[in-house]
Every structure is written in structure tokens, then in C-alpha cells.
């Protein structure tokens, strides 16, 4: 019968499908078999998180390490979709934890409280340091800038690199008379949040005219999409100045400035200086910006990157079982303690002790159907 021809075609598609599926199952099976020696299949857990791109290299490296340490028991899948996306998916309850460089606003906190009858916790996971990056032929890293000069540059008032204000801070350097090209992020970004929060704190004019946030109304300059967009524009434009996270600048060999802090010390961006900056009185929920830090040896343009979790984990649609909840809490505990060991090797600053203590206090309150799983897991880890 002729009609069988079309069925054969469809049959081929279905058949090739079965082959592919079988292959993928096969892959899974062999994977399982090797792991069965250590743990049974039922006890293996996939955790899903998403959010800020800045901490992604650190968090995925933690996931690699944690998977090894737990003998493949726990696979943490972290996708970098930006701080805004992380908050959004966290509120939509499609991910088990979010990640952001801008803490949850009061409105979002209230919204979460209404939906889940519990709070959303902002748990610091690492520190975000933002450095002014520039492209000045003949001048490497280490141009000295302060808050006043940065505000003038990003307001478009300083238009040439040999401006007396910049020269006053850099006596030994031969500044070119290149025009200043300002580059900023065009997308909503935690990096912008940290940078503009610094400018807001050092300048009343910036605070009233521009303010701070994940995206602001820039008075001058060109936009670049993502860290890579800003870096690309800066690298390709002599006389350009932008801002990037320190690890990104280091990774791409960009020149970055040293910044004078509120105590008048000139600080070379470094992990230690960033950790020092966070050494301040933290509120209980750690929702604080510490740009322009009062710490005398702290780098002034830095902030936390937070992990977002619900107080009532059972209320998060993405978490289906107590086991998942327990494993999630264990991973969070590990990442702010042992996991911090990975920081320097990857270009991140360690969390200060005070922040870790605050995090423990928050984790203690995490519940699954009213049971204090957070407290249980902290006990299990021998931390309380």
C-alpha cells in the first residue's frame, strides 16, 4: 500500500528518536553504574539556581568541587542570566535559589512574604568589586582616581585626560591630551548598581541628578551590553573609561585605576582590600551597600553578591522534597565556608567573618513544613 510510504518516513523519524533517546538513557545508565558504588540512585539530587553573571565562574567552580566532594550525590546547575533575571525567576519560583548583586527591594521582600508566609533571605556568597577600567596608550594600570574625579568624568565635565584634576592625583605620569570617552552598561546590571551607589555616596550632585540602581539615566557616554560589551568598547577606544568587575579586568588584561577611599588612602583593588571594605557593622538581613566604606584599608567600590532563598523552602514550587531542601541548605552552608577556599584562585574576594556569622543566623531560620532544616543542617556540619 502506498500509504505506508509516509508512515515509513514518520517511522524513520520516530526510530531515530528512539535511538537518540536510548543513547541518552544509555549514557545516563553508565554514569549511574559508576556512581552506584558510592550512592544509590534514589539519593542523588539535582539543584537548580540562576542569576547574576558576576559570581557565575565562582559558583560553577563550587558546583564542580561540591559534586566531587559528595561523590556525585549533588549536582548544582547554575545558569548565569543576570541579577534581574535571577530575582525574577526566584520570585516566579522556577529555581531553587537565585543570585544577585543588588539585594531584594522592600517591595519584593513584602511580595515574597505575602506569597510564602515567610521571608526571603539574602545570603552573601561573595564580594563584588568594581574597578574603573581605561585605555590610555602608554599608561598601564594604576592611574589614581578619586570620587570627585570619577563623578566629573561620568557627568561629562572632565573631557580631556590631561585635565588638571586628574594630573593633580597623578604627578609622575605623562597624561595624554586624548578626549575622554565614557563607556557604561546598557543592560540592567549589578555592577552598575555597585558603581553608581559609590558615585551617589561621594557626590550630592550625582545623588540628586542621577541616583543609583541596576540601570540609570547616564548623562554622557556610550553603552555596552554586559561586562564584555563595556570591555570591548574600552579596549578598542583609546581614551575610553568604563567599569568592570575586578576579576573580569584581570582576566582580560585591562588597565584599571587605583581609587582613593574615604580615609584618604589610595587603594589598589585587591581581594584583601575588598574583604576589608565589607568589615563594617552589618544589619541582620545583610541588605546593605558598603560602597565608600569607612574601613581605612577598604576598597571603596565594592558590594556583596547574594544568594536568594526562601525561609519556607516548601513554599518554593521548584523544590519538591525535604531531601532537596536539605541538600540545598547543605550546599549553601558549604559554599560560604569550605567553598570560600576557591575564591582567590578564581579572582574573588573572600567573605568577611561577620558576613558568614550573619548568614548562619539566617540559615538557622530556614524551614521545611515548619521543621527547622536549616538548624539541623548547621548542626550536622558541626557549625553550631
Amino acid at each position, binding site marked *: *500500500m*502506498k*500509504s505506508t*510510504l*509516509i508512515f*515509513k*518516513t*514518520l517511522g*524513520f*523519524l*520516530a526510530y*531515530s*528518536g528512539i535511538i*537518540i*533517546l536510548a*543513547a*541518552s*538513557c544509555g*549514557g*545516563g*545508565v553508565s*554514569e*549511574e553504574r559508576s556512581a552506584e558504588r558510592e550512592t544509590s*540512585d534514589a539519593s*542523588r*539530587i*539535582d539543584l*537548580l539556581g*540562576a542569576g547574576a553573571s558576576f559570581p557565575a*565562574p565562582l559558583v*560553577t*567552580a*563550587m*558546583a*564542580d568541587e561540591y*559534586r566531587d566532594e559528595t561523590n*556525585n550525590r549533588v*549536582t548544582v*546547575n*547554575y*545558569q*548565569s*542570566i543576570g541579577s534581574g533575571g535571577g530575582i525574577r525567576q526566584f520570585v*516566579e*519560583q*522556577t*529555581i531553587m535559589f537565585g543570585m544577585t548583586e543588588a539585594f531584594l527591594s522592600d517591595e519584593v521582600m513584602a511580595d515574597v512574604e505575602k506569597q510564602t508566609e515567610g521571608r526571603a533571605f539574602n545570603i552573601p556568597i561573595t564580594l563584588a568589586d568594581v574597578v574603573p577600567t581605561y585605555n590610555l596608550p602608554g599608561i598601564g594600570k594604576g592611574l589614581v582616581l578619586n570620587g570627585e574625579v570619577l563623578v566629573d568624568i561620568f557627568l561629562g565635565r572632565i573631557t580631556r585626560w590631561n585635565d588638571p584634576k586628574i594630573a593633580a592625583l597623578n604627578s609622575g605620569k605623562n597624561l595624554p591630551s586624548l578626549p575622554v570617552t565614557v563607556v557604561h552598561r546598557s543592560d540592567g546590571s549589578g555592577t552598575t548598581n555597585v558603581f553608581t551607589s559609590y558615585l551617589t555616596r561621594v557626590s550630592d550632585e550625582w545623588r540628586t541628578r542621577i541616583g543609583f540602581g541596576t540601570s540609570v539615566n547616564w548623562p554622557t557616554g556610550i553603552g555596552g551590553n*554586559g*561586562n*564584555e560589551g563595556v*570591555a570591548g568598547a574600552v579596549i578598542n577606544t583609546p581614551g575610553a573609561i568604563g567599569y568592570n568587575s575586578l576579576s*573580569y579586568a584581570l*582576566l*582580560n588584561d585591562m588597565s584599571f585605576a587605583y581609587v582613593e577611599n574615604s580615609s584618604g588612602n589610595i587603594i589598589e583593588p585587591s581581594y584583601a582590600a575588598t574583604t576589608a571594605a565589607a568589615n563594617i557593622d552589618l544589619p541582620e538581613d545583610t541588605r546593605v551597600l558598603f560602597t565608600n566604606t569607612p574601613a581605612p584599608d577598604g576598597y571603596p567600590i565594592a558590594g556583596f553578591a547574594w544568594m536568594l532563598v526562601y525561609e519556607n523552602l516548601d513554599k518554593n*514550587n*521548584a523544590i*519538591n522534597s525535604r531531601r532537596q531542601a536539605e541538600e540545598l541548605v547543605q550546599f549553601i552552608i558549604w559554599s560560604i565556608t569550605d567553598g570560600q577556599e*576557591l575564591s582567590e*584562585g*578564581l579572582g574573588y574576594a573572600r567573605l568577611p567573618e561577620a558576613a558568614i556569622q550573619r548568614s548562619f543566623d539566617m540559615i538557622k531560620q530556614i524551614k521545611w513544613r515548619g521543621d527547622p532544616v536549616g538548624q539541623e543542617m548547621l548542626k550536622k556540619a558541626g557549625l553550631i
Partner: protein
Amino acid sequence: MRRVYDQKSLRQRTIWDHFILGLLMISTLVVMVPLLIIVGYVIINGAGALNWDLFTQELGSPARAMQGRPTGLVHTILGTAVVDLLAILIAAPLGLGAGIMLSEYPDHKLNPVLRILNDTLNGMPAVLKGLLAFSLVVKPMGTFSGLAGGVALAFVMIPIIARSTESALMNIPWTIREAALAIGLPRWRVILSTVMPAARTGLVTGFLIGFARAAGEAAPLMFTSFGSNYLPNHWSNMILGPVDTLPQRLYSLAISPYKEWHEMGWAAGIILLTFVMILFIAARFLTRQKIKT
């Protein structure tokens, strides 16, 4: 005189003919060159990164690539196969049905509406189809999944398959249907046994165009299949959990700050191109074989 006139005319026609043929060849080249440049550029940049690890290892963190530890895209390749397959399994029956309806029941009251809806769906930005799949599948399931990705890609495929099925069936002369009806076959039999076999090349081509178009889409997958850095802990999570796909991974590799990942992105491009090309060749082979029998 007359003969000379004729010959002149013939020569003019030959020249004209060559001229037009030349133009046609130039336009063909203009179409082919960008394709060849793209394929060539991808191969030149990606060939160096093609290695065994790429097909056997999981991606993990960028630290793996930077420190020279094994890293690859095995989960991405399998994920792409699963998501694309789910998509065609969902889209083929629906698209085929809609196409049959439009072509074989031309007087049906619903057809004008169906046609407008189909064209609207076809013109809709792919990212909106992803959002639709997000609210239809991801939200109720409470997690991103390969299934959601399949549904999103099916929305890309359905209008293309419906349209191509319609035009493939329309190409079959109406007299064939009349002949089949005249020997007493019911309508469904006529469609299944005479019209569709006759139009098989067109039908399969339609599937493939739809498939190839969807296989390259990254936008609808961002918030449906979402992406993953590892093979899931259980194979069923290929369908019920977040999975990686080549177009989406290619994008995230390309915008990453790591040289190693850029190279891997090019290699991912080669794999995706090969994947689509194998499908096209398989389909050509399939339809040709059918004509011989």
C-alpha cells in the same frame, strides 16, 4: 535579406540568453557565498577545538577550561537531540493535520481563521513562543525542562510544517482525488493513500525546513529548557529537568570572557551545522529512495 535578419535575431537571442544565464549564476553565487563563508569561517575557527573530550565530557565551570581540565559538551549534544526530537514529535502531527485541513477541506468554515492564526504564529518573534511555553509548561511544572523547550520549538515548527504541507498537497492535481473517490474510497483513505504518498517529497522537505529553522533557535529555549552544565543525575531529567541545547550554549560560550570557551563555541557551531546537514542529507536520501520504488 530575410535570412540575415533571422540570423542576427538568433545571435541577439543567444547573447541575451547568455547574459541572463550569467545574471542567474551571479545571483546564485551571491546566495551561496555568504553560506560558504559562514561554514568555512566556523570550520576554520572551530576545527582546532574539536576533540574527543568535547563529545564525552560535561562542561562544568569555566575554571575547568582555564586550568586545562577535561571539559566538553556531551550533555549539550544529547540535550539538543532530546529537545529537537520532542519538538518534532509534537509539531509533526499538529502541523500535518492543519496542513491537511487547509488543503483537503478548502471550504471548511474554520479555514480562513486557521490560515490567519497560522501566519500570525509564523510571524511571531520566537522569544514570545518561549514565553508561551514558559507559562504553559514551566510555571505549572515548577521547573525548567526539556519538555518545555520541545513545546517552545514545536511552536516554531508548527506554522512552517502546516504551510508547507498545505502547498505540497495543493500541488497534487484534484483529478487524482476525484479518481480515488470514484472507486469508492472514503475521504480519509483518499488523503492517506493517494494524496500524501504523491506529495511525500514536499511533506518531508517541509518537516525538515521546520526542523532546521527550530534547531537553530536560541531565544525560545532561554526560559524553557534553560540550560545546564552537567548531564542530569537521572536520564528522565533530560525531559523533566533543565537541559542544555547547542544554540543556547553557543550563545553563552560566545559572550563569555574566556578564550577557551570562545573556541568551544566555534566547535559547538560545527556540531550544530553538521547536525542540521546530516538531517538534510538523510531526508534527501529518504525521499529519493521512495521515488525509485
